[in-house]
């Protein structure tokens, strides 16, 4: 773990900025400070503006009207003028929140019906300006203005106090204003509501998904790694810790589980890595609804150095095999896609493609037992017997679909060169038995490859190929080394040249100075000469 930390931190720091997180923190602090300053200045200016505005408004109405016309482009900031009630003109009521003027007026006055009608029309017509009416904006208003600018809930409270005859009249606008204010308020918080809901769902899903993944991994371990199961019968040491009571599985992240086994002939150890779906992560879960993925398990068998002959072999579904042949270095170097199987014997189904170094290896590794066991189907056999075909297809559907790929190689590009890599999909916890035959392939192939010896003919071929590749690698290395050397030399030469040019410049200056002096000297004697003459 310790050696994972430092490199990853280096990685992230290089990803974000040359200075790492400290720079980000600095930026954060500076921006917080600047934004607070910004807000303070904005609110202060707004307040002063409104105070001045109100004073003028109280002085005379004509100036107010003038001001209002000039301010009509700022409808949200202008306070509701008290004149709306007396004039009850539509354009003016457009600028303030109508329910407030209603509540402010004497509710029992006969004017109220008029104002209510006014309110109704304004609420209907000015629903667009209504959306600008943000409560937060009015929190900053002076205290005396809060009397005139009451939020909608105050208006609601004031209405029930009205006598019955006005109630009948106000009932209609009440019905309109209340749902609007409610839905409006909900709509204004829609982002917050959805985000909080999503966060809650995310948290709930995290615990549910984690549990699901754990049960799946434990089901696998119980099926294949508990007492008297496949791995217990094949390996003397199971689990990641030491001792008999060590935990079988190592959890790495919420969706990666590792199982380790060791103590078997032909191999040093086996590491199975389960990469389950990110069930704990709601976002990946939603993503996987669009792009489905499988729970996968990868077995890596580290073979003993002396127990694996020259074998480079891969088997996967057709498309995956092509991708493997292109991407995996050792397959690319040594192996080719095998077009067709040998005649007269069982071979893998058409869905699969074999990548191999030589036909002999492929023929020896895909034994009849394997084909039978996992029923990777076969074209020849199908034609031979009707019964077998049905059986084979059924069996393939049952077992073959969990098979993803196999890759055996003595030239792996990792820390361990001789390695068998087998990849399966994991069925769900209740159908774990379906992959029993596939898991049984792992010890089977360990023994098969551990005992396997190439024929002398094939061996000479593979040895030639290996020595050739080794030479190429050596040449590449040599080239790289030479390039590095040359680069170093060039750099040194450049440095020398620079130093020389510096020296040269100095020398040039000196020479020039000397030259000048000499010329001066030359000129002097001339005068002298002329004098002397």
């Amino acid at each position, binding site marked *: *773990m310790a050696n994972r930390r430092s490199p990853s931190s280096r990685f992230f720091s290089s990803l974000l900025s040359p200075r790492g997180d400290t720079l980000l923190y600095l930026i954060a602090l500076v921006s917080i400070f600047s*934004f*607070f300053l910004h807000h303070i200045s904005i609110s202060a200016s707004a307040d002063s503006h409104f105070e001045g505005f109100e004073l003028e408004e109280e002085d005379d109405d004509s100036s107010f009207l003038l001001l209002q016309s000039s301010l009509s482009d700022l409808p949200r900031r202008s306070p509701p003028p008290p004149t709306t009630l007396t004039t009850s003109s539509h354009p003016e009521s457009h600028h303030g929140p109508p329910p407030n003027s209603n509540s402010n007026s004497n509710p029992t006055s006969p004017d109220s019906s008029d104002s209510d009608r006014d309110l109704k029309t304004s609420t209907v017509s000015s629903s667009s300006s209504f959306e600008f009416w943000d409560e*937060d904006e009015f*929190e900053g208003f002076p205290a005396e203005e809060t009397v005139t600018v009451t939020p909608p809930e105050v208006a609601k409270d004031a209405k029930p106090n009205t006598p019955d005859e006005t109630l009948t009249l106000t009932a209609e606008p009440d019905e309109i204003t209340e749902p609007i204010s409610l839905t409006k308020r909900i709509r204004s918080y829609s982002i917050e509501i959805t985000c909080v809901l999503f966060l809650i769902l995310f948290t709930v899903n995290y615990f549910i998904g984690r549990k699901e993944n754990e049960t799946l991994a434990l089901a696998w371990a119980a099926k294949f790694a508990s007492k008297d199961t496949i791995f217990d019968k094949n390996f003397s040491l199971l689990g990641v810790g030491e001792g008999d009571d060590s935990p079988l599985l190592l959890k790495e992240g919420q969706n990666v589980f590792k199982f380790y086994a060791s103590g078997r002939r032909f191999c040093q150890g086996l590491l199975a890595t389960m990469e389950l779906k990110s069930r704990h992560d709601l976002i990946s879960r939603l993503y996987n609804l669009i792009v489905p993925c499988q729970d996968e398990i990868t077995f890596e068998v580290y073979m003993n150095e002396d127990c694996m002959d020259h074998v480079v072999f891969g088997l996967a579904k057709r498309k995956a095999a092509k991708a493997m042949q292109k991407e995996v270095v050792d397959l690319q170097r040594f192996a080719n896609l095998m077009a067709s199987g040998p005649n007269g014997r069982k071979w893998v189904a058409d869905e699969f493609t074999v990548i191999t170094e030589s036909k002999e290896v492929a023929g020896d590794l895909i034994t009849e037992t394997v084909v039978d066991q996992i029923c990777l189907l076969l074209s020849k056999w199908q034609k031979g017997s009707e019964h077998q075909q049905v059986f084979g297809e059924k069996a393939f559907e049952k077992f073959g679909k969990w098979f993803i790929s196999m890759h055996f190689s003595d030239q792996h590009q990792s820390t361990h060169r001789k390695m068998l890599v087998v990849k399966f999909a994991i069925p769900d916890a209740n159908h774990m038995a379906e992959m029993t035959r596939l898991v049984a392939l792992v010890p089977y192939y360990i023994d098969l490859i551990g005992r396997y010896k190439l024929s002398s003919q094939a061996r000479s071929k593979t040895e030639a190929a290996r020595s050739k590749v080794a030479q190429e690698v050596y040449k590449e290395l040599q080239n790289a080394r030479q390039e590095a050397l040359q680069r170093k030399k060039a750099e040194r030469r450049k440095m020398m040249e620079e130093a020389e040019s510096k020296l040269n410049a100095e020398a040039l200056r000196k020479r020039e100075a000397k030259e000048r002096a000499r010329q001066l000297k030359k000129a002097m004697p001339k005068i002298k000469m002329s004098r002397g003459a």
Partner: protein
Amino acid sequence: MASSGNDPRQPSTAKPYKPQPVHPDNLPVDYSGFIAIIFGVAGVMFRYKLGSWLALIFCAQSLANMRNLETDLKQISTGFMFAVMGMVTNYLSPARAAVKT
């Protein structure tokens, strides 16, 4: 149990598990933490509420996918700080002005 010749187990060769060193380039990139920081910065810079909320959500995702406690926590805390900062600028600053007056 089968005879020793048939039993594939060899307790003498058993080796305890050693976690393989992982090359830094092979580490999975914490995209969600990175996205969280980007959204957080956007939320702060443009006073964009949704940005801050998305930053918070991606922080949660990054936290859920965390594998390595120390390094990942650094990035997550950065993203979280930006998210909270965006929240403060978006929601608390008007209230602050109201208190002032």
